């Protein structure tokens, strides 16, 4: 039985830290707070960041980077279609 070594790899921990930071930044700089970006652009950026975060959860946490092509294509199709549709709809108002 192997018991040595850390429970989490450095890459996984860094991805988690980046996801937490992106969540905090989305809230702090998000639409409606009048910071940095016009509301429309901020709404689109917030959703774009959310979908990038989703991609990282899929690739790193769900281990889809190493999944067979049919599965990667299925998830990528969902992410692209729903992600692009929501970002465009968010920018329209």
């Amino acid at each position, binding site marked *: 039985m192997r018991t040595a070594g850390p429970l*989490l790899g450095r890459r996984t921990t860094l991805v988690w830290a980046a996801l937490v930071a992106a*969540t905090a930044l989305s809230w702090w700089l998000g639409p409606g707070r009048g910071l940095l970006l016009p509301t429309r652009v901020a709404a689109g950026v917030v959703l774009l960041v959310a979908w990038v975060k989703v991609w990282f959860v899929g690739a790193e*946490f769900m281990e889809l980077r190493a999944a067979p092509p049919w599965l990667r294509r299925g998830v990528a199709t969902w992410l692209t279609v*729903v992600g692009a549709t*929501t970002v465009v*709809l968010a920018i329209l108002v």
Partner: protein
Amino acid sequence: MTTDADLPHFLGGPPEHAAVDDLGDVGDPAPRPPSDPRVPGEPGLWVFLLGDLTVFGAFFVGVLVSRLREPEVVRESAAHLRPALGALNTVVLLTSSLLMVAAVGAHRSGRSAAVVRRLLLGVLACTVVFAAVKVGEYAHLLGAGLEPTTTVFFTLYFVLTGIHLLHLVVGAGLVLALTRLLSRSSRRRVALVRGVASYWHMVDLLRIVLFGLLYLVAAS
């Protein structure tokens, strides 16, 4: 007592063509079902997950279409939500996902069942925090007279977050079951652990979009 033979194939049970005698137990080198080891879980589970993601995707689009049709109503309704609590719960689920990754890694690398179980209990602790915050949010809204029928936004908010919370409760049940099943360790449980983990991460990634959509974009 539940045995591998009682479980459906995608939860780690035997393939339909397997004979019960072939199942074995601890450390049994019996042949694995012919599933692709690169699939995190089982293919059947992923058909369900992709279907679930599609339904949520339709809801996401629905929120934004309602925002296009009634921007003022949606903006004023969403302004009653507390983004800080939304961010907090998103971070709580991200942390639960990290613990789940650690649990899968610990199980895969042959750590003791006690170590894996402790990590899974950490996941469950995150679930309790998330649910407590969510119930607090519901109580705050309902106390202010903001119900699912008040506006189209609140209808979507309560339905979407309610379905998501239901997914979380189901996931917590699976994690709890896993902590009990792990006491009878078997190589065959690798697919089971990865399957539950994939479901858990799906709940997490749906939350990421819900936070951006309901708490941030809808309020703008």
